[in-house]
């Protein structure tokens, strides 16, 4: 017995296919509309929720409170600014007081200081003594200072003079400041 006989007419199967297709299209179109509407609605609600207005209002409220403290704010800024400036000045100014003490400490007891000039670049020192040994100690002390880069970085000996009247030797040294 034949079992593959199609009893429906060919046109009827086509109609069924068409109905199925149109049904599917309807479902897709309705779903599309629903999705679009839902999306639009969600976006509208989100945009309302993310509105900047309430934040701006809060900002303005805080700013109006800060404005009441403007004087304080200005003073704080000035204090900070001037403190930074003061720190800069204090840090960069040469410490001539400690330099003088350092230099004095290096002068042997029997050597007298005649003159000492200090500026940012150089140190010039004139000393006198009756003892050449003390002058020698003085030169050694300052040579050591230059070698150890203590206050000066080099040393120039100006020459030794002898005053026959007083019987004292005087010496002049010059060094570049660190």
């Amino acid at each position, binding site marked *: 017995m034949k079992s593959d006989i199609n009893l429906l007419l060919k046109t009827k199967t086509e109609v069924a296919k068409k109905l199925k*297709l*149109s049904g599917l*299209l*309807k479902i*897709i*179109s309705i779903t*599309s*509309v629903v*999705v*679009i509407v839902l*999306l*639009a609605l969600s*976006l509208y609600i*989100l*945009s309302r929720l*993310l509105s*900047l207005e309430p*934040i*701006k209002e*809060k*900002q303005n409220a*805080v*700013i109006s409170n*800060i404005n009441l*403290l*403007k004087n*304080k*704010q*200005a*003073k*704080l*800024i*000035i*204090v*900070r600014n*001037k*403190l*930074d*400036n*003061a*720190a800069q*000045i*204090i840090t*960069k*100014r*040469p410490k*001539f*007081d*400690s330099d*003088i*003490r350092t230099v*004095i400490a290096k002068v042997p007891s029997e050597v*007298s*200081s*005649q*003159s*000492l000039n*200090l*500026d*940012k670049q150089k140190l010039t020192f004139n000393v006198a003594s009756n003892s050449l040994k003390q002058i020698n100690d003085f030169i050694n002390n300052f040579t050591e200072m230059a070698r150890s880069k203590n206050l000066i970085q080099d040393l120039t000996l100006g020459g030794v003079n002898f005053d026959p009247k007083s019987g004292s030797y005087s010496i002049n040294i010059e060094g570049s400041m660190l």
Partner: protein
Amino acid sequence: MREKVNVDAEALKLLYKRYKEYIVPCFVIFICVLLFFIVIISQIKDLIKVSKQRDTELKKLEVLKSNLNILSGVNSSVLDSQFDVISSALPPNKDFEGIITGISGAAQRSNVGLSDFALQVGDLSETEVTSGEFPFLGIKLNIQSSYQQSADFITELFKSFPLAEITDVSLSDRSTGISVVFYYKPMPIIEIDNYEPIKTLSKNNLDLMNELSVWNSISALSMPFPASSTPSGSSSPF
């Protein structure tokens, strides 16, 4: 045999009626796709942009709140005293009185007698120079003192207000010549941006402020400069 069909209004109507159940849903789907790409996607982009803006604004709000908290927490009297101290250390203009008081106080504290230094008043106006960002007044001092006293005097001068810097020192047996510059700093033009975070005083700032306060209190204990005791002070402009 198929008829020839003219594509005119009648034919379109016929076609529409015949395929209506396909055409309408297809058209709806097409419109929905168009709406999605044209409207929805641009709305999503806008929303992302707004969300970023919101984050920025929220951060600004946090900065504002933090600024308000900082300013509310600053003790006015402490700030005023800090302002006074730093204004003495670095005055907004040429503080002649402060300079003379500073020199006088330093001389007293270092045991250099008041009659032992001469203030070249003429230099006050002549040596006004601006170096870098700090304007200053230059003064040449001559003090009668030993080396040790000169060092002490400079130490004390460093602790006096306005802030001073020694540019050169010439010491001889009994006298010392010192070139000093006293700094001042005009008040800066302050442009306050509310959205800029306010910085409080750092630890270094506070340490320096404490040091300056100590110097200020030491200076305050010094006697004021007596006009009669300046060897060359007869032409004092104050």
